[in-house]
């Protein structure tokens, strides 16, 4: 699948296109197919996102997994600070990145 990501303009937070709005959780990302460029242009023009780009990802029983490690780290947070990730209570969360 192809998913769309970027950063929230004001907070800088990593966000994922979830169909009607942006989500902090990659699990909610939807397949944008060949619509990536048009959604990105529209959302960027509306200042709902900054520097959007599309990436390859896989959907499996554990949810949506970006193909590249860089985007998996963006999705979770720094692997060296589990307390600052989106899953601070899950010590195994970092394994998802590798």
């Amino acid at each position, binding site marked *: 699948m192809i998913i769309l990501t970027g950063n929230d*303009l004001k907070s*800088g937070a990593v966000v994922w296109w979830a169909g009607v709005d942006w989500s902090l959780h990659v699990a909610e990302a939807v397949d944008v197919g060949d619509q990536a460029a048009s959604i990105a242009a529209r959302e960027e023009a509306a200042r709902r996102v900054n520097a959007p780009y599309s990436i390859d990802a896989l959907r499996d029983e554990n949810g949506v997994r970006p193909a590249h490690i860089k985007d998996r780290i963006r999705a979770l947070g720094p692997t*060296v600070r589990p307390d600052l990730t989106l899953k601070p209570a899950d010590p195994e969360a970092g394994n998802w990145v590798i």
Partner: protein
Amino acid sequence: MYQYDRFDQAMVDARVEEFRDQCQRRIEGKLTEDQFKPLRLMNGLYLQLHAYMLRVAIPYGTLSGPQMRALGDIADRFDRKYGHFTTRQNIQYNWIKLEEAPDILAALAKVEMHAIQTSGNCIRNISSDHFAGAAADEVTDPRPYAELLRQWSSFHPEFSYLPRKFKFAVIASETDRAAMRLHDIGINIVRGHNGDLGAAVYVGGGMGRTPMIAPLIRDFVPLDQLVTYAEACLRVYNRYGRRDNKYKARIKILVHELGAEEYTRQVEAEFAHLLAQNIEPPIAELERIKAHFAQPAFMPGDVETSQPDVGDGKFAVWVDRNTHPHKQSGYASAVISLKPVGGIPGDATSDQMRLMAALGEQYSFNELRVTHTQNIVLPHVRKADLFALWQQLEAAGLGTANLDQVGDIIACPGLDYCSLANARSIPVAQRISERFAANGKGDTLGELKLKISGCINACGHHHAGHIGILGVDRKGVENYQLLLGGSEAQDTSLGKITGPGFSEDGIIDAVETAADVYLRERQDGERFLDTYRRIGMDPFKEALYG
């Protein structure tokens, strides 16, 4: 240390308001990201992997107690209670909101700090010896000259759009503690034959994708012509440095392609031309700056104080490893390691920053330094106070005694934070420091400088590590190249790649294997680097690849 005059303050305050307006216009949609990006970068604001990142300049690494405290307070108010001290002697905040960035700059301006020229193709923060003004071996305090160059280069209209970024280092001792020859311009202040001070000028060094050691292009520039000479060096670069290819745009490529001799000839011609224009700042300005760096009121006649016996010898080890000889008898420079076993190199919490601020005020004449090795220095500590200082550091987890040891690792933020990264640096540093603490070998290795970069940009100085590690991307999987034999000290050398790269697990084992070869082969008094230089790469390759 230097204090702003009304011109400095007015400039910085005006810049805060200008940036506030620019941020507001971006948020309101009056500026596109393409228009805004160069403006935010001029104020040190990057968009990184997880959020905006703000890089704050710490000129030549010198900070007062209130400035360090303000950095801690900013981490609390605007970030996630920590900051990262960098190899450029700066600090970076990782979780900045665009809408709050102007308020952070305003908070910085209150303590005479800013983020100007911490990004972009301009002259960046000028680095220096972290023991400047204190080191027993310096010929003078290099910081007044670094400050003069800082003032000359701040908003210099001719050098705001150079072909690429540009970095100076200024030192004043034979021992190089600032990687001087790995800068675009390295200046070493030396004493000439007639007893006068002057600058030996090295141009065209750097790390990154094409590492080069800067050649000496002039062995003595009178200090009252230093700015003019620097201007001449920059002018030749600005005129002929390549702008068509960003990978060939640094001055090191120009000096290399022209040859040091031809580059020097052009600089000398420009220098002669500029001398006639009389652009050098008046001596009175240098004297005004120097007055800010007057020697603190050291206590006269202070005697050497013996170390108290605390039983387990930890304090004695810390004194041995983490203090440095001071020019004033009875004093020492104390290094606070930001590298606890398994910790994140260079990170400090807001509480730790405030504690270090207080300790700087109490024990070091209100002065602290950031080292390019991502530690903090209290430059002027009475030896009689070292024990009390160490006890407070120990209690706060800041008493690690590992300066220049295998655990004192330089690591860039790498793929955990940096959008340019190929691989993570920090976990590798953590695992190596844990490995050598657990197996006890760390204490037997002596000086071993290990440096890790997450990509070829080499912010982690991997080319200059006795052992260097470079993270690369091998088909989407992190992979690590091992380098041996680099040095950023006065015996500057560039490390050589051992051979094929390693996985994350493999690189930890590989570093231990290289250390084992050293332990097996070393002769009396040899550091890892000395042994490597004597026996060469082959025994290491043999052990690593069989």
